[in-house]
């Protein structure tokens, strides 16, 4: 199948990519589900619904034009070569200090949020 993106062949409107994020149930984070190709926002919504929601597997979808995503993958910004271990909490153990602080305040450890 010809995945036309330039609108040149066939005379139809150009397809563009839309990224789809889905929430599986209320309270869950939005997770990237995949992408669809569509000529405009209206059909992007239809196709996202069919690809990521037709089996009731989602309670919410976010559909984002890929071109609108701010893409940052510059290694100088994200993976600089110098040692950055001083920015990480390794070696600094919080657990005992936190437990002592809770005991002093008479609080119990909060339970993990129900899923």
């Amino acid at each position: 199948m010809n995945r036309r993106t330039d609108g040149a062949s066939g005379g139809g409107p150009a397809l563009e990519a839309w990224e789809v994020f889905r929430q599986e149930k209320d309270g869950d984070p939005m997770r990237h589900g995949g992408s669809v190709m569509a000529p405009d926002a209206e059909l992007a919504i239809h196709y996202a619904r069919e690809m990521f929601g037709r089996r009731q597997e989602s309670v919410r979808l976010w559909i984002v034009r890929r071109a609108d995503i701010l893409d940052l993958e510059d290694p100088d910004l994200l993976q600089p070569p110098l040692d950055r271990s001083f920015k990480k909490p390794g070696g600094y153990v919080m657990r005992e200090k936190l437990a002592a602080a809770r005991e002093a305040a008479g609080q119990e450890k909060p339970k993990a949020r129900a899923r």
Partner: protein
Amino acid sequence: MTVSAPPVAGLDELLLTMADDEFVIGFSDSEWTGIAPILEEDVAMSSLSQDELGHAAALYGLLAEITNGDPDAIAYDREPDEYRHARLLDHGRGDWAMTIARRYLYETADAVRLEAVAGGSWSPLADLVGKLRREERYHQMHVDSWLARLASTPGEPRDRLVAALESLGPDAGTVFTPLAGEGDLIEAGVLARSMADLELRWRASVAAAFGPLDLPVPPATVDPDRGRIDHAEPFRWLWGEFTTVRRGDPGATW
């Protein structure tokens, strides 16, 4: 499923016509599986077709309850002449514009019919229709998008759409072919209005939508009393397709 209320005269005919409509359009549109304009639309149209077959299965199920029948036998074991879908759905799949035009004319007519049954006195049907209408909302959104898209794109898209509407138009009103028992259904409160009344409402809604798009509204139905019989050759071909497996091994358990 337990159906408690006593059947009303004419109910079997109403259920059969509604079920056959959904069944035939579902199979007809499923012919796009694998060959739709783009991959996403292929999935969308296949999913819509499955929805329609699901609606048909639920309606055949109700019919089987009140007639002590078997839903699969009703769906698959009749001869082509025994199906009671509207003549609008007898046209072959055609091109994409034909499918969109047929879906638009059928979905809008079905919506008017469902509304007239939604508050009905026979709760098994009224309850089911409440669920069908929620799913049909998306179907309507999908076909509205496509109708507007084809209508407003000059050249081949619009030309093909207009040609499809002109070809289907004389049969479009057959969804409202009068039912022999509709007087009983209205009296019993199963159906809110006569098919003739519903057709007027549908025509008003289509005219309101087609006006701004400058599309040809469907003319009066040709031979309106025979709107659900005398099925044409494209349906006989489709019947051969959708009964192939069933006829290949009658009585088999799948």
